[in-house]
């Protein structure tokens, strides 16, 4: 290191700077985790964890009683949304409504990039192509008749996704259909993207929330996705006890890859859906802390006694 030596020489020519930094004497805090400081820490942390664990456990347990708004999820298993080939098979530019993305989708989308006629697919890619298309309708038996329970499909996706990340191509003459002209529907879809929710222009095309939820690929092969929420009318504070009927339009094939489908009704608490994991781990970790605290206390006292004996 020539530079080092030249600098060193430079420093050598004159007396070295007598600063705290050059002399490695910067004022410093030198903490030492001794038993004295660690013991209260352990007990406090342990108690805090236990308290949190109890709280978590309790709130996780209350979820079963369907108090509060109920969410309707569908769950798939053995479904690899996190497969790399699957995960990259999308075109975010296209989904943001970009015109060039619409006419020439990204190469990653293949083999779902163009239809056999060579028309670009919108939305392209394997993820969009495999959009979950079972539908559920819930009926509540009241007064001897089944009344449909209103299922709210608004706000099931991330706000930033449905408002910024995903947007439809610019309307041509006020028509979304015209905007999609020159593109083909995904091969597996029964209808084009602009027909996803014909009744609601704010929920059709790329900004259809079911579509957006599906496009957020899951982390693990067994995953659930939010389908609807029950938060209107009589059901805003939960599903009252009674008889319900769920009408399922069975479209989505899962047996071919040995997968399963499930429908899940669940309320959510401040900690999200039911998940006993956090509560249990907090409880275990809290007890472990307190236990080691006691062990250390014993060791500490023993050492101190020994020291006293040594001194005497």
């Amino acid at each position: 290191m020539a530079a080092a030596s030249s600098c060193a020489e430079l420093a050598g020519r004159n007396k070295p700077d007598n600063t705290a930094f050059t002399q490695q004497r910067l004022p410093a805090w030198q903490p030492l985790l001794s038993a004295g400081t660690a013991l209260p820490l352990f007990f406090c942390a342990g108690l805090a964890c236990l308290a949190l664990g109890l709280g978590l456990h309790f709130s996780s347990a209350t979820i079963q009683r369907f108090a509060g708004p109920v969410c309707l999820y569908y769950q798939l298993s053995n479904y690899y949304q996190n497969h790399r080939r699957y995960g990259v098979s999308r075109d975010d530019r296209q989904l943001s409504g970009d015109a060039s993305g619409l006419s020439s989708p990204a190469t990653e989308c293949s083999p779902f990039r163009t239809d056999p006629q060579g028309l670009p697919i919108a939305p392209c890619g394997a993820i969009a192509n495999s959009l979950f298309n079972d539908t559920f309708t819930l009926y509540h038996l009241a007064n001897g008749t089944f009344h449909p329970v209103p299922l709210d499909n608004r706000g099931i996706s991330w706000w930033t996704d449905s408002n910024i990340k995903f947007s439809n191509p610019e309307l041509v003459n006020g028509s979304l259909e015209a905007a999609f002209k020159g593109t083909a529907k995904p091969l597996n879809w029964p209808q084009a993207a602009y027909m996803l929710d014909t009744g609601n222009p704010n929920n059709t095309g790329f900004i259809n929330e079911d579509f957006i939820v599906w496009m957020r690929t899951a982390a693990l092969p067994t995953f659930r996705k939010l389908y609807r929420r029950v938060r209107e009318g009589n059901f805003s504070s939960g599903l009252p006890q009674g008889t319900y009927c769920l009408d399922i339009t069975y479209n989505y094939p899962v047996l071919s890859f040995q997968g399963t489908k499930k429908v899940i009704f669940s309320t959510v608490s401040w900690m999200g859906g039911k998940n006993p994991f956090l509560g249990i781990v907090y409880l275990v970790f809290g007890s472990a802390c307190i236990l080691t605290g006691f062990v250390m206390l014993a060791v500490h006292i023993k050492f101190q006694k020994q020291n006293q004996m040594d001194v005497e």
Partner: protein
Amino acid sequence: MEFSINQEIWLRLWSIWCAGEEKRVGTRTVFVGHRPVSETDAYVEQKFCDNRIVSSKYTVWNFLPKNLFEQFRRIANFYFLIIFLVQVIVDTPTSPVTSGLPLFFVIIVTAIKQGYEDWLRHRADKEVNKSSVFIVENAKQVKKHSEKIKVGDIVEVKADETFPCDLIFLASSNDDGTCYVTTASLDGESNFKTHYAVRDTTGLRTDNDIDSLTATIECEQPQPDLYKFVGRINVYRSNQEPVARSLGPENLLLKGSTLKNTKTIYGVAVYTGMETKMALNYQGKSQKRSAVEKSINAFLIVYLCILVSKATVCTTLKYIWQNNPFNDEPWYNQKTKKEKETFKILRMFTDFLSFMVLFNFIIPVSMYVTVEMQKFLGSFFIAWDKEMYDEEIKEGALVNTSDLNEELGQVEYVFTDKTGTLTENSMKFIECCIDGHKYKGGISEVDGFSHTDGPLKYYGKAEKCREELFLRALCLCHTVQIKEGDNVDGLIVNQERSTYISSSPDEIALVKGAKKYGFTFLGHEADFMKVQNQKNEIEKYQLLHVLNFDPVRRRMSVIVKTSTGKFLLFCKGADSSIFPRVQQDEIHQTKVHVERNAMDGYRTLCVAFKELTQEDYKKMNEQLSEAKMALQDREEKMARIFDDIETDMHLIGATAVEDRLQEHAAETIEALQTAGMKVWVLTGDKMETAKSTCYASRLFQTNTELLELTTKAMGDSDRKEDRLHELLLEYHKKLVQDFPKNSGKLKRSWTVSQEYGLIIDGSTLSLILNPSQDSSSSNYKSIFLQICLKCTAVLCCRMAPLQKAQIVRMVKNTKGNPITLSIGDGANDVSMILEAHVGIGIKGKEGRQAARNSDYAVPRFKHLRKLLLAHGHLYYVRIAHLVQYFFYKNLCFILPQFLYQFFCGFSQQPLYDAAYLTMYNICFTSLPILAYSLLEQHINIETLTSDPRLYMKISDNAMLQWKPFLYWTFLGAFEGLVFFFGVYFLFQNSSLEDNGKVFGNWTFGTIVFTILVFTVTLKLALDTRFWTWMNHLVIWGSLAFYVFFSFFWGGIIWPFLKQQRMYFVFAHMVTSLSTWLAIVLLIFISLFPEILLVVFKNAKRKNHQTVPFSLPMLLSYKPMENGYISEMKIEDAVTNFTQRCHLRIPQMQQL
């Protein structure tokens, strides 16, 4: 006739061509001024290299390819290049940017640094090459660029100019044909050296005269040795036989040295450009590599194995998993056309490469950068250290290489020179003895010159004439020069203004000593030496011959002619080299004195003289002149002649010069020994002197049992080898065989029941290392080595420079390859400084050669203590921690990504976003560890310096052994498992927000990554014992930066990204309370074992602290007062020593 001339030309051409082939052998012929010698002899233009100095490595054109080639020769860079190329070629999960960016950053920074350094070299070269010089051509001076000088050109150099190439000195403006030169920039010796012109050319003082010179110079091909040169000049005069004169180093003016006190000189260029001695010496030192670097490479291989096995496991499992057609290609995830078409084998191979790329972050490219930065920046602290600054020479420590900082903390053997290293090398004349009578001066300066019966204290008195002879000998037998003050006339030397200059401080002490007794050396005047005697008369002696001191002969002689026409030879030298050459009956009395002085630790020299008859001198003069003409082996030939002359001399007396121990030398040695280092003293000095120095510097304690392997112990010359064998076996039995076996475990403990010291001298060593063929003693060496390694201290005296290096190499190559350190101050220590793992130079009085060739240079020996115990210790701990931490943090970085493959169908899906993958090592976790590795003081510097035993804690590369490495690896693996499975179980229900919305795979990765960044940073925070504001800044700053960056990265739709994976992922993550709770909990769980360990360790340490550790220090200081002296039984020594010891003990207690 014609034929023979042709033949001659052919031969010459042949020899020139050959010279090009093998440069260092043979001779070259230089035509002065390019003039052919005679008309018959055709002048052949010879090809020598031009005078351009090229120290730069690159040119504008070859910089890019050459620099890149050199950088990619480093195995790490090459590895990352391969990874990058794989990413470019193969369809891999991460974009080439992730590994390309860091790699190109590193490459570009290194290239810029090297390019800048090379530009500086170019500039310096240009400055040298374009500087103007004056060349005499056709009796006129021509101004030229220095690079245009050709061999054979006559160059004029003026005062205070540096010589542009190696010149043969032809003539100077001084009448006597001398000039003064300082070689400060070559070897650091700042004294003026006299160089002599050849007698036949001294008269050529003008351009015209010098142009008339017709001469050829034959000299050896360029050699790097600055102090050797043999050549011959043939001066042709019209109608006369050519005169041949010998040329030696005193006729050669070296490039790089500076002309002083002389108006102008003429010289003829003999070596130019890259063939000058300076350029030949410039060639860089061999690179030393530290033990830590070797450990890094070993760990690297382990991680490479982990990487390959991870990739193999994943590839295998992938194909097993895919065997099931449901998994291979479900309807929702069909393969691309390309994928279907590729062969299975090829697919498997690319899959393997993809996995390699996915996991390649486990081998951190940034570690090399950080290690380099740590070393580079860290070395400044050594240079900056105020405590290693010496007021006297106004200089601090010098760092020549920063690659070995941590090696300073691993030293097991210290090899130290004695003179100038342990001792001051500022000599003081103490006493002398003349004919066995002791003269000791409590001399006070009296006005005028003291007379023999003046203030001197006599212990008996020698004859007056002997006294004077002795003092004259001191005044004449030396190579001291007088550096005159500014306004000094030639004759009258003002005492205040003139100083003696010599390459040897002993000589100055002797000349000064003689002055105290009334004989003053007044300097040279042409061939004459002037001496002012006790009666204030000036005596003149013609100096005929000088044979300089050299370490082999260990003596020097001068031959002078007195004004009365007598020829006298004075010789001074070590007793062992003088005694055999003088009348045996004269020895006894002086010998007693010499031995006594030696035991006092003084350096003794004996002085002898001889009167030569006219005939003797004549004969000798002829022989000497002949020898001086010789081109080869001149020194040996001259030495042989002098050997013949220096016989049957008369011993006059002996001198004793004190070389004081350096301040705190003893404490330093003791500290080093307490720190578990073995200190060996390697000196050229004689045994007695060295031994007493060793006692004084507490290398040998009073209870140390000394084993001697010296010529003295060996006795008779006939049975030498047998006796040596016997001794070796005896010592071996004592130390190795009878030694309790369990001592092997306590390799470096400070409590050894019996300490042994070994003394060996040079001749015995060469007997051991190079045994004669017939003897069955080839195993001498191993026996000797075993003995050496058992001894706590070893003293090797009478060592030649190469023997010093030999010893170092011997120890270096023993089992376990202990780390060696050599420290010395003189040119004779350079070989051992270069040989040892760490070479330390003392910026001493014997020039700068040692300091230049060393890795570190310090002003004093005592600075070694702080350098090793504090700096070395800290650097080692810092870098070891740095290395371990880097491997650890990358293991727990990549392990979750590996585990994730089991849940994504082995599809090489990265867990973390590309930005996180790239930034993790560059931004999020790099600065805290860099700050730690620069500032950490796990034990503060004062404690480290005052308690040397702490040094043993890190001995044998303790922090980079497999055990700590495994600990860190397990820690990393544990944390990786906690990160992944913690979040995995959390994601069993992925609706973690209170509104039931779900998280996807990028949130999963981001949660893991957040826990990871916080855990590894907090782990470092737990390890930090020394929290300066900088640590706070970088640790909390890094975490804050991570959070800030994550918001920023997820807050914008980046137009250059194909997929907006991270869009608002982080922001959504932090709105979920459960995620917060999970992150905090998982960080705690990951750190829990570490916290437990720290607490228990501290509890244990606290418990141990009650044992006072000052005890052993006191114990080892105690026996100094009476021990050594009782052995010596010499009263002078007693008083002398007790005084010194008393002085030293209070100093020590202050420590």
